[in-house]
């Protein structure tokens, strides 16, 4: 088994890239791989507590919790979050609220790295 690190910068609403990153993380975790998921830029919105489910919006909070239960480590960029008014207390439990060095360190030790930029 190996380690996959995915960094995603796309937004939760209006983009499919974050859905893709979460689903690929789950598929890799189900295969027994170690997975790190880094949320940066608009993707940090996914780390925010209290999101509400709407019919045609991506609603990934439950998926994130199930990923964490499967051992996926999720990190959210502190600067990008704070820049969007998301503070440490607003972040879903067990999501690491930290600087980008977390992502760089994880990527450096990974077998595979997939960086999904902004559209």
């Amino acid at each position, binding site marked *: 088994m*190996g380690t*996959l690190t995915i960094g995603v910068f796309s937004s939760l609403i209006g983009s*499919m*890239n974050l859905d*893709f990153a979460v*689903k*690929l993380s*789950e*598929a*890799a975790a*189900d*295969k027994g*791989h170690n997975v790190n998921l880094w949320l940066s830029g608009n993707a940090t919105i996914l780390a925010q507590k209290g999101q509400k489910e709407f019919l045609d919006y991506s609603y990934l909070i439950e998926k994130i919790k199930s990923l964490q239960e499967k051992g996926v480590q999720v990190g959210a960029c502190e600067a990008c979050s704070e820049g969007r008014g998301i503070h440490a207390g607003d972040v879903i439990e067990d999501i690491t609220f930290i600087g980008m060095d977390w992502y760089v360190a994880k990527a450096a030790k990974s*077998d*595979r*790295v*997939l*960086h*999904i*930029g902004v*559209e």
Partner: protein
Amino acid sequence: MKLGVFYSELRGNHDVLFRLKAEKLGIFLVSNGIYHAIIKEKGEPSPVLQKQGADYYVLSEDLQTRGFSTDEVDSNVKVVTYSDIADHIMNDYDKLAWL
């Protein structure tokens, strides 16, 4: 280098794709990139499918989300699931890119 490229847009930058060089190249059509596995322009397959020596894959879930069935997919493109993609990227391609 064994490179796996994720192509996620319909009107993306083909130029970058055609400049890529790799010992082994896999192109994964995901999100709106799946249209390249389906569409014909003037009766011809999408230019994205014309990268010499590349292996092409298309994500089945993104096909179905957009109302396509697997038998509409170009014969040079292999239909895969997320699980298959996890296997391919962990076993067959050591570098990954997102276009």
